[in-house]
């Protein structure tokens, strides 16, 4: 039964998706849009599961003292810190007890992790967690230089959220992406070797395409290289890409059919 129900559902919705592709009528559109809404809903519930999983894995790392377990605290502090910054904002220019409040919340999180991870003597971290939580609640109640905002723009405008976004997240993400330049250099160094005829052709083609960016060739040579490289990109390269695309397209249809008909059950753990 546990196996039958999902298969029936997949068959039903899969067939409907095929049906709606050929039926433009409004009623079929309505069902289609209704089903799409469900994707959002399921996604939001799954996100909660995902965050819980991240939390459990981090706690587990601390518990088993895995390699570099200390970073798990950084992960959790980042997770809860950003959520907090997103929901709180100060009214004026004064910070009040805000930073102490943030510290209290983060310490509560860390202490509760500590309590979950500790094998013996859970009492101390648990007590401390409670103490910090109490502190946080007291500040939240009595400090009125800042307050909580839900579903409003103020949260996103909050100074802390902005600062963390602008000065921590943006540089880190840009840095990770720019690592690609180094990896491309080293990968190109290893890969483009004229080992045999085909590899030599690849090498020559790659050099021509890369030379296109070089502006010091003068008009005639530059024009020639630009023409050759655009031929390389538009004819042999595009032909190979299209061949792969056609294969992928048929593969997608075949796999989708297999899933709908219940032949392929890999997604249910039945290879």
């Amino acid at each position, binding site marked *: 039964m546990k196996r039958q129900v999902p298969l029936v559902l997949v068959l039903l919705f899969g067939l409907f998706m095929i049906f709606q*592709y*050929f*039926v*433009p*009528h*409004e*009623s079929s*559109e309505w069902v289609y849009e209704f089903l799409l809404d469900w*994707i959002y809903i*399921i*996604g939001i519930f*799954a*996100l*909660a*599961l*995902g*965050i819980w*999983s*991240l939390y*459990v*894995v981090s706690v*587990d790392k601390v518990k088993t003292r895995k*390699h*570099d377990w200390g*970073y798990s605290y950084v992960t959790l502090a980042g997770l809860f810190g950003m959520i907090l910054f997103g929901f709180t904002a100060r009214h004026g220019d004064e910070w009040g007890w805000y930073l102490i409040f943030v510290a209290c919340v983060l310490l509560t999180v860390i202490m509760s992790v500590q309590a979950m991870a500790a094998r013996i003597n859970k009492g101390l971290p648990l007590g401390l967690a409670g103490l910090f939580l109490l502190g946080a609640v007291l500040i939240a109640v009595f400090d*009125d230089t800042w307050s909580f905002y839900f579903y409003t723009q103020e949260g996103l405008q909050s100074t802390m959220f902005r600062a963390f976004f602008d000065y921590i997240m943006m540089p*880190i*993400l840009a840095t*990770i*992406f720019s*690592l*690609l330049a180094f*990896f*491309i250099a*080293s*990968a*190109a160094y*290893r*890969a483009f070797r004229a080992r045999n005829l085909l590899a030599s052709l690849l090498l020559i083609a790659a050099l021509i395409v890369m030379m296109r960016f070089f502006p010091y060739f003068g008009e005639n040579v530059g024009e020639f290289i630009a023409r050759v490289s655009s031929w390389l990109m538009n004819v042999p390269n595009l032909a190979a890409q299209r061949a*792969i695309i*056609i*294969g*992928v397209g*048929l*593969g*997608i*249809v*075949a*796999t*989708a*059919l*297999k899933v709908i008909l219940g*032949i*392929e059950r*890999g*997604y*249910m*753990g*039945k*290879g």
Partner: protein
Amino acid sequence: MRFLFGLTVILALLLGASVSAQTEPPVTDSVADSVEVPAIPPPAPVTDLKALDTDDDHGHSVTLTWTKSVDAQTGQNTVNGHQIFRWYPAMMDSLAGVDSLKNMRQDIQRAQSANSVFRRALGVAEDALEDLTSGGRGFDALRFTVATPQDDSTFVLDRAFVEQALRDTVATMTTHLPLLPDSIKGLQASFEAAIERLTEAHQAYPEGGSWNLVGLAAKGDTSFVNSGNKDPMSGDFIKDFTDLYYRVDVVTIDETIRTESAIVGPVQSEGQWFNGGRFPVFWAVIIFGFLTMYFVSRARKGDDLYVRPLAGIEAVDDAIGRATEMGRPILYVLGLGTAADVATIASFTVLGRVAKQVAEYQTELIVPTYDPIVMSVAQEVVKSSYLDAGRPDDYKENTVFFVTNLQFAYVAAVNGIMLRELPATNIYMGKFFAESLLLAETGALAGSIQIAGTDEIAQIPFFIVACDYTLIGEELYAASAYLGREPILLGSLKAQDWAKAAVIVLGIVGLVAANLEWGFAKTFLEYFHVTN
């Protein structure tokens, strides 16, 4: 005297006639002020105007076709473009208080935004009042200094005054607040009633109502699709099964000089139950479905179907063996796809197979995921595999876990795992984007054996460079059939091969047909034309 009177009457009649001859009097100042231009003779109207419900759509749309005016691009060549008009009924007669649907839409939207502004303002006033009464902000008095030539006068707003003013504001707003949603509801109700009676109102043609511009067409055009919206709240809503009337004007450079066509109508729009423009796809699906069924049934009967060996898949077994020998974990990356991507679905199958072997060899498996739904599915897959391998107790919840929904943060996390745990084998299967090389190069740096598979064409070269084995495009989808070795799965691969052969043959035939000017060759290509 009588002569003068007669002259006046004649003049008045002439004036009246000339005014009534102008159907649309959009005489703007600029036209009136402009220097005299040589008069353009009015162009000949479009003829043969037809209006039909647009085919193969969800309704709410009408297609107009016409024969060009003789003065469009030929003849006097004075036509500058076409303006398409539709008749809008007057709602005044049938519904009290309903001016026009357009105004009502705007009223509703304005009322809605006013409501939100009002609520926010009330919130601000209440907060301020609370601050003031609780003394939180330490408000004493606001001093305004006004400098005059004689002396500096200072006005003071004291606490009591401000408090009273805020109290009044809050009280007034609170009493008025419920009125706004009520008025929105009222507006919406009468709007819905108006929409309900729109069909009826159209039957009043040509009583009342007015002609409204619904679109423009270039001078060379001979058709126009008036596709409206299905949402009544949107400006260009067209109601199905309602009598619509159209008119196409040819206009010259001077938009006041124009000629109307004959009016066409009534025409009704409606949704279709089959999209005829997609027939080629329909047949392809039917034929491909039958091919799959046929080969599956042949495979079931025991026919031996040959499948080309895939080095990447065969390497999976060795890689797991290697990991076991080295006592190091296996890292399985499902990519950035969602559970709806076929590449991810294929990846689940490979994951199932890997997890089963891992369970048998008792090696460690690490599966960091990017999408929470993918995580849930992958957990189920790994769990079932451990069950199949007869080792349900060895399954750990933390094998599959969620990291983040941010592309490069995910890369950082996975790269961190690679460098810390030094997995013996990294398997990348699914959808990958700019992160492919970042992952694969780090894996190579960590000395892992790497197997990749993706259908993202732009990323395949990166994987080929940095990984030991790469499944290219559809090979990833074939992996499940190959791994399972189940006859029914192999059958579908065979069907895929036949379909590919058909595509190649049709491609060559199409190439020849497109370059030949035979009558049949041209119609042949038409059979494969998919519209909308």
